């Protein structure tokens, strides 16, 4: 069995940052990701980030991803791609299957789980037809595989993912027929919504998709108005001729590994559902396990990167790679950036939800 000081599971924004921070502190890091390419959501974010200068405002996610990868090479971090983590035994034995062919068990003194989130389902008649897919799936197809999943698209959900992917579908040459939002008000940040609106895409609030129609593939979609109890109002149906329906109904933290390993769960509706209890230093109820990014609560790539730094920092320090004084300084720098990110209307709710989780870890 191989030994490594720190195994980071997931090479998205959180995992990459955690691996870099830990490696910079001198820890021996193995970074594992089940995809062919690292970067997770980063390489799908071709829009410009915004926020303070520290958060690389005005830089596209994809460029941040490339930058982090360069640093990972320089720090000689061992990166295993096409490597699926199938289980964690005794809180420190990581069972990894490489290239879908051979199994390896790595004994890790610390494990950082940065496995991200998975898309929520919306069930409507015909939702299993080919052509109905998660917005993330469409984004992956366009930005990574460079194929258009369809020509005429209905987007369900006007949150950030919904409007960003709608814009990216337009950029890739697809025709977005409509964005449907069940709530009375639109969800995403104004800057993204405005871009899609300018492109002439109609938004339908208090609307939902009632049915997808088609024989072997989506051929049309029926949408309709809903009342405040989300019940469809008869007579308001509109049939749209589309061949693709994207679902952007929020994300849920991908917590299977954390809970199977034994991390204590806590329910946080604002951050996407059940998450592992963790303290401000991103450590879970199991002393050798840390979390970072959407697994610890669904937020954004920028907060994921900061949480990754925090987890990498704390894990390295717990192995004696950083003295307390240096740790205190770096800890506060990351904490301030996180506070800045979790500001404003949306940010405040997320900050309170995080504090709720952290308070559970002291209990």
């Amino acid at each position, binding site marked *: 069995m191989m030994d490594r000081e720190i195994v980071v599971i997931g090479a998205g924004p959180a995992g990459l940052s955690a691996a870099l921070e830990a490696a910079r502190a001198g820890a021996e890091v193995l970074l594992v990701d089940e995809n062919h390419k690292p970067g997770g959501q980063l390489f799908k974010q071709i829009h410009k980030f915004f926020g303070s200068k520290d958060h690389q405002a005005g830089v596209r996610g994809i460029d941040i991803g490339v930058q982090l990868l360069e640093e990972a090479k320089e720090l000689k971090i061992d990166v295993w791609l096409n490597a699926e983590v199938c289980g964690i035994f005794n809180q420190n034995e990581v069972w990894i299957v490489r290239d879908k062919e051979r199994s390896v068990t790595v004994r890790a003194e610390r494990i950082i789980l940065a496995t991200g989130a998975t898309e929520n389902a919306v069930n409507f008649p015909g939702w299993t037809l*080919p052509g109905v*897919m998660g917005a*993330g799936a469409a984004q*992956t*197809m*366009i930005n990574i595989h460079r*194929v258009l999943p*369809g020509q005429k698209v209905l987007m369900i959900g006007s949150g950030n993912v919904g409007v960003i992917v709608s814009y990216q579908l337009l950029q*890739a040459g697809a025709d977005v027929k409509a964005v449907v939002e069940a709530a009375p008000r639109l969800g995403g940040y104004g800057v993204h919504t405005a871009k899609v609106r300018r492109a002439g895409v109609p938004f339908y609030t208090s609307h939902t998709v009632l049915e997808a129609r088609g024989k*072997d593939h989506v051929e049309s979609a029926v949408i309709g108005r809903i009342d405040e109890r989300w019940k469809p109002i008869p007579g308001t149906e509109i049939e749209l001729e589309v061949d693709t329906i994207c679902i952007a109904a929020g994300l849920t933290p991908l917590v299977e590994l954390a809970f199977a390993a034994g991390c204590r769960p806590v329910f946080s509706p604002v951050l996407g559902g059940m998450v592992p209890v963790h303290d401000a230093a991103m450590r879970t109820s199991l002393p050798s396990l840390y979390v970072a990014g959407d697994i610890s609560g669904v937020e954004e790539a920028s907060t994921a990167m900061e949480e990754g730094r925090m987890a990498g920092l704390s894990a390295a320090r717990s192995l004696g790679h950083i003295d307390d004084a240096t740790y205190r300084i770096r800890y506060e720098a990351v904490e301030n950036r996180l506070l800045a990110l979790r500001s404003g209307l949306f940010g405040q709710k997320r900050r309170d939800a995080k504090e709720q989780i952290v308070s559970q870890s002291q209990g």
Partner: protein
Amino acid sequence: MNRIFEHPILGPLEDTELVRIFVDGEPVEARKGEVIAAALIATGKQYFRKTIKLQEPRGIYCGIGRCTDCVMTVNGVPNVRTCVTEVEEGMVIETQLGYGKWGRGINS
């Protein structure tokens, strides 16, 4: 053809080596290193499999290897997730009906 040849941000689609795969017996040119699902979407394939109970069509849903809705029979082995499996030269890909059948003609 659903390939994005020109993209305002990602730029032009660079040419790569082509790989020949067989989809339900038909030869298809795929791009080396791309996943099976992308190659099939590029050809406009309507559905990847028919379900076991009601024989209903299924295709891509999560796109990142978690929901297992895009599985097909590849080189005689059923239930291969096409959205996370890269194409290889000479790969034999079949639309999967129900739980599929063993390629080596063993379908007792």
